[in-house]
């Protein structure tokens, strides 16, 4: 794969490492005249726990959307393990091992907690249908229809598959501490549990990279602390690379090893929490004077 790597300026980080699980190379995106994201670089390796911060409207969620294929970049490229994924659909990118949660929780509200996770688990058994020739596409389509027949005929292999999915989803619910909500409809869960369920669902798609969009929003301090522990644990147990968008400085500074700061779509700083915290530009542009005061001039 590396043979057909594009002649782009490599991301300045750690070039010796194996190909990044997810990489953005000079990604820009415009809506009409508005530049929502300019020359964005990012690279996530297994075991990373990165943070993406910035004031409201800085382009954090836009970055997520570009990385997961919801938006197409105007310039630059997104690579998953050195495969260019520009122009691919979100579900195809997901199948390559990138899963996400949403800022405004987007669960399948009328489905039970278990079914929410099973939807994601299931998808991984589907074939990758990214860049296939016509013949392969036909075979693929045939396979898809045949799969429906298996479900309709309730074949033993289908039943086994269903049991496997259930077991897998139950395991994830357990990991996220949601076993007691197994048969509850998602919309009836309390807020914090909905957030956790979204993570469980993302894990269901067996990702290598997990993108969390403000996972702690609306949680109280204790829940946040628990969440910090949980995110680290997930990274280690599931051998993930994690990228977190977060408003809560404490959370980000507490768990992330490296932080990228966006403002008006531009990357204004990148580095370890301590560096970012002391970066004058960041403090001015993002944190503001009041923050400096309240934290007694953290720098």
């Amino acid at each position, binding site marked *: 794969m590396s043979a057909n790597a594009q002649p782009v300026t490599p991301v300045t980080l750690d070039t010796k490492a194996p190909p990044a699980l997810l990489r953005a190379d000079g990604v820009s995106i415009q809506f009409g005249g508005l530049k929502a994201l300019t020359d964005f670089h990012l690279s996530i390796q297994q075991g990373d726990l990165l943070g993406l911060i910035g004031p409201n409207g800085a382009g954090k*969620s836009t970055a997520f*959307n570009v990385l997961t294929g*919801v938006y197409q970049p105007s310039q630059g490229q997104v690579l998953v393990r050195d495969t260019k994924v520009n122009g691919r659909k979100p579900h195809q990118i997901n199948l390559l091992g990138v899963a996400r949660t*949403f800022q405004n929780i987007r669960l399948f509200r009328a489905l039970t907690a278990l079914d929410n996770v099973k939807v994601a688990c299931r998808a991984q058994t589907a074939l990758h249908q990214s860049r296939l020739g016509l013949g392969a596409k036909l075979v693929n389509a045939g396979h898809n229809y045949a799969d429906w027949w298996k479900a309709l005929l309730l074949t033993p292999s289908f039943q086994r598959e269903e049991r496997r999915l259930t077991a897998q989803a139950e395991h994830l619910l357990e990991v996220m501490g949601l076993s007691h909500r197994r048969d509850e409809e998602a919309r009836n869960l309390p807020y914090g549990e909905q957030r956790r369920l979204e993570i469980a669902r993302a894990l269901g798609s067996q990702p290598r990279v997990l993108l969390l969009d403000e996972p702690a929003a609306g949680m109280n301090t204790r829940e946040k602390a628990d969440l910090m522990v949980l995110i680290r644990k997930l990274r280690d147990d599931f051998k993930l690379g994690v990228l977190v968008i977060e408003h809560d400085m404490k959370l980000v500074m507490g768990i992330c090893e490296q932080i990228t700061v966006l403002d008006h779509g531009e990357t204004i700083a990148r580095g370890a929490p301590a560096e970012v915290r002391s970066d004058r530009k960041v403090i001015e542009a993002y944190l503001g004077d009041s923050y400096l005061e309240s934290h007694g001039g953290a720098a």
Partner: protein
Amino acid sequence: MAQLLQHLINGLAAGTIYALVALGYTMVYGVLKLINFAHGDVMMVGVYMGYATAFAIGREARGSFLGIAAVFAVAMLGCALFGFLIERFAYRPLREKPRLTALITAIGISFALSYGFQLDIGFLPGASPRAFPEIIEPTEWLIIGDRDVVVWNWQVISFLIAVGLMVGLQYLVFGTRFGRAMRAVSWDHRVAALMGIPTDRVIALTFMLSSGLAAGAGLLYAIKDTSVSPLMGLYVGLKAFVAAVIGGIGHVPGAVVGALVLGLVEEFVVGYAASTWRDAVAFGFLILVLLVKPGGLFGRVAAEKV
């Protein structure tokens, strides 16, 4: 050449009337995201109101300006009231419910009206079509050559009325407080309510406006084609709906353009190709437009915020 011109005139005449009906669809869709399937039938009711008025005022008064004004006034006001009642009792209780629910009540009302008016009991008119009284005496307004191209006075009059109504509507939507409220409700009626906009009143007024407009359009239609029947709403309504979608449903000038385009397409299919395929071509055209521009000619598909 003369024939081409004649087809053009006919197509535009048909298109203007589609446009007025399509505007009703588009306005209601704009504020409520409801495809008001009963719209065509409300129009039909309005036409019968005008029909009854024309007979009530007698043959002499009919031709006078006041007579015409009375017919239009009664039909449009009556129909506006009718639209208000339908909104109040059939749609408003369902406003916070799933969107499809209101659609089903719209279908129910459509059935009740179009079948109800086929009864010949009491004041109901019965199934057979009736000749619409000539409230505008047809005379040639313009003749080119040996009657190669003929433009009739009612074509001109209805074109003027239609254009007047459209301009008025455009002003109403973009130039008045009510229009601003309407657009706010259209954007998000819950938020609009929080901002102190009397949502219920705005929606009710929109319904009245669209129903009144439908009655006006229906009358023009009846004058043009000289007949009324209980099923007329079904056909006109469907075509106008298609026109509204071609233009981008919810978009006011879009509805007008969509309707004119549809009127011309139909006219030319019949005039120069096979008349049997008119409806198929109309719908095929619609599908083609949507495939190229998924939101209609003017509408934009709002990118969903993720």
